[in-house]
């Protein structure tokens, strides 16, 4: 495991040359600031709402890798006062789906900070997020000597065919994609890394019912008090050293956890999935995108009569998707 971690860090450091700084404002980062790390490609329409959302939660600096966007995302980000941007034309697949870049930036700029590593379509929700800023959570985690915070991916979808309601730039995506599966999640423990594998949700239900082993993993640990020696092993699903993956209690108790609302299934998704399929740059030969694309040709509706409409974090807490733990 130690060797594996060093291999991951070695890859990350070697691939740093492929990152070209566009705007480096990392000098602005103050002690104890909360940082957000992300890789993106052609996500311009989402960015305004995304940045606004996380600024309001209390993220103080964004570190973004722009993987060859041609829709103006890079320029837009470079124009923001609290964002540092790197660009790369290197292969997403060859950089372990962006994780080499993230690991390098985390190691270089994230040490000693609470770091949130998310995609541009993931929105963090945690207990009390309507009344307490992210800083309250990280202070509490610090006081409890907790180093990593679990937030599983909760796939959100609209009612009706996903092309029906077009997404407008800057709009809250959850005005459209406001439905989710309340209890359709299968959990297994990964003995090697000690993390939980969570699969299911609407993607498991609609795209992978006969082949659930290959359904995308929903477990994520996006918020970590970073140290130089840490590394994400596979997306943000699991980390090394392994102790960071123990975000769950095994004696019956509940640890605090949140979730990432996943605004993937919007009208923009159809074009995106066709493009991603063409690029062949995704996990497991883009199997996931292949499944989406074949299903979407028939314009599938992810909604079912057991779907729930999203209200707030309390609803997710009652359903048992997230937990307050002992953060009362």
């Amino acid at each position, binding site marked *: 495991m130690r060797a594996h971690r060093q291999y991951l860090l070695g890859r990350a450091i070697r691939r740093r040359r492929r990152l070209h700084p566009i705007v480096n404002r990392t000098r602005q980062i103050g002690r104890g600031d909360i940082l957000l790390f992300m890789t993106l490609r052609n996500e311009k329409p989402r960015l305004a709402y995304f940045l606004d959302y996380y600024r309001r939660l209390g993220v103080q600096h964004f570190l973004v890798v722009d993987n060859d966007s041609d829709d103006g995302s890079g320029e837009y980000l470079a124009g923001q006062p609290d964002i540092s941007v790197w660009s790369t034309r290197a292969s997403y697949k060859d950089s372990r789906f962006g994780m080499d870049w993230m690991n390098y930036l985390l190691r270089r700029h994230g040490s000693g900070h609470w770091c949130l590593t998310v995609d541009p379509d993931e929105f963090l929700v945690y207990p009390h997020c309507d009344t307490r800023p992210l800083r309250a959570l990280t202070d509490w985690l610090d006081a409890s000597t907790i180093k990593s915070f679990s937030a599983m991916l909760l796939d959100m979808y609209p009612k009706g065919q996903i092309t029906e309601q077009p997404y407008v730039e800057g709009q809250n995506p959850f005005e459209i994609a406001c439905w989710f599966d309340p209890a359709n999640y299968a*959990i297994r423990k990964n003995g090697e890394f000690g993390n939980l594998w969570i699969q299911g949700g609407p993607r498991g239900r609609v795209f992978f019912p006969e082949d659930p082993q290959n359904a995308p993993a929903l477990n994520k640990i996006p918020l970590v008090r970073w140290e130089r020696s840490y590394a994400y092993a596979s997306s943000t699903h699991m980390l090394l050293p392994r102790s960071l993956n123990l975000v769950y*209690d095994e004696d019956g108790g509940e640890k605090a956890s949140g979730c990432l609302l996943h605004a993937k299934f919007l009208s923009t998704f159809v074009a995106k999935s066709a493009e991603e399929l063409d690029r062949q740059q995704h996990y497991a030969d883009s199997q996931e995108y292949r499944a989406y694309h074949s299903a979407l040709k028939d314009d599938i509706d992810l909604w079912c009569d057991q779907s729930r409409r999203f209200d707030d974090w309390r609803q997710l807490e009652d359903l*048992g998707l997230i937990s*307050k733990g*002992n953060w009362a």
Partner: protein
Amino acid sequence: MTMAVAGGRQVKLGVVMLCHNELALAARMVRTWVTGGAAVSVHVDARTPDAEVAGMQAALADQRDVVFCRRRPCEWGMFGMVDATQEAAAMLLDRFEHVTHVLLVSGSCLPLRPIADLVAFLQRHPQRDFLESVTAVDVGWTVGGLNEERFTLRFPFSFRHRRWLFDNYVDLQRRLRVRRRIPEGIVPHLGSQWWCLTRGTLTAILTDPRRPEFDRYFQRVWVPDESYFQTLARRHSVNIESRSLTLAKFDDQGKPYIFYEDHRQMLEESGCFIARKIWPHATGLYDYFPRPAGVAPSAAEPQPARIGRLINRAVARRNLGRPGLYMQSRFPRQDCENGKTAAPYAVLYGFSDMFPGFQEWLQARVDADVHGHLLAPDEVEFAGGAQVGPGALPNSAALRDLDPKGFLANLIRASNRTQIWQFSPRDRQNLNWFMATDPNARLFVITGAWALPLYQSGMPFDDVRRIAAILQRKETDMLAVLQSVWLKARVHSWNLADFSARPAAALQTVVQRLGGEPAQAADPPAIRDLTGIGRFFQRLRNAGLRPQNMGDFAVEEPPQKAGPT
């Protein structure tokens, strides 16, 4: 200055404040106390950067009723905290001769009520020491920590920074049965660190002729700030009210609860004098508290019960969790679940083999979701043939088999109605132990009923015999689980012969136990034809397979037409 007059002597409050960080806030709190009429003696941890301390001193330079004492290093759990308190208290008593009561607070303690209220409260019992103090032997006061051993072992190593040494040294002492001698004349007591003592008691503790001996002893006691004053006050005071005036709750890791802006109303209603800890950035709370003094100070008792409940609930959530919940931050090991499932459910084994239309029949008679064979190998048979069941669980068997336990727990937790389903040896058997060890499970079992569909299948006898052997093996395995000493489910069991002799009575029992009206069970559903079953069992026996769980059937002559060939 706030003075309250009663019983001859006026109460004058002195405050000892211990701080180590967030000094700007601490300075603000000092001002609050001084404005309320108290004299304050401040101790700042020696490890805090000097520049910050200088800033705080400058900010309070205009205050005549504030003194800063010599700085000592305060490592959590070590004697430094007591040392600092002694230092600051001695200075307070020395500089402010009219102080009658000394209150110990930290920089992150926030007075909720007007300080005049606290003075009025103390004035009601001017001779009383408010200090939580319980004997270490009798009561487990501490949460999750050492009790008596705090006093009988030595603790030279820091718990926070040298955890390995700490743990192993404790272990070693336990193994060697080392016990320290407790100084004569004191009985170890424990209690909250935050107290309010009268001048008399505090002076007696600080000027005790045996103080060097006690100090030496407490230097190696663990977390002496929760025992030094609590123990020695017992030696000098006869008027101890064993409770703290500061609302300071701890979770089971010994970590204080932190209050945020959304606790504002609850804190106000609690009527507590002082609360800790407050999140330093909860500016709303700092702006709102302490409440402005009313016309007349109120000496009303604090009512912390509601906050106590909130915190107890949080502790229970962290330690016990919600029964039947398996999620990203709660994934209990087997038999550590504190409730394997969230609600009662019922499993009907063999009924659908006996009565082909049983599911629909039962659905009409009970207020519950009656599913088909949820654990069938090829498809999850939800009630009404639904594609998607409760909680948006799909009817895909592959997805269910990824995490069968989670599937069941999700199904039961996600629906408000009781879940009932059919079961047979043809289904997946991998949840038998789970159900049998779950007190929420109610199992109704007809053993041997699996043979009926087989008997009427019309398949070649060789195949029938082979399948019968497999199904019987599975049933025997399941019955072994149900007969184990770990059984927690409630099981009602019949064999095929008993059940078929009086099916109506047995069905009445089932319907009644499931909360239905037994009278409605008077018309049982169509039962499979049992004619010639005795002969069938005899044929199996002749083929070397002994039917085990069917009960006794007479071996009639084979009927002319029916039966497998």
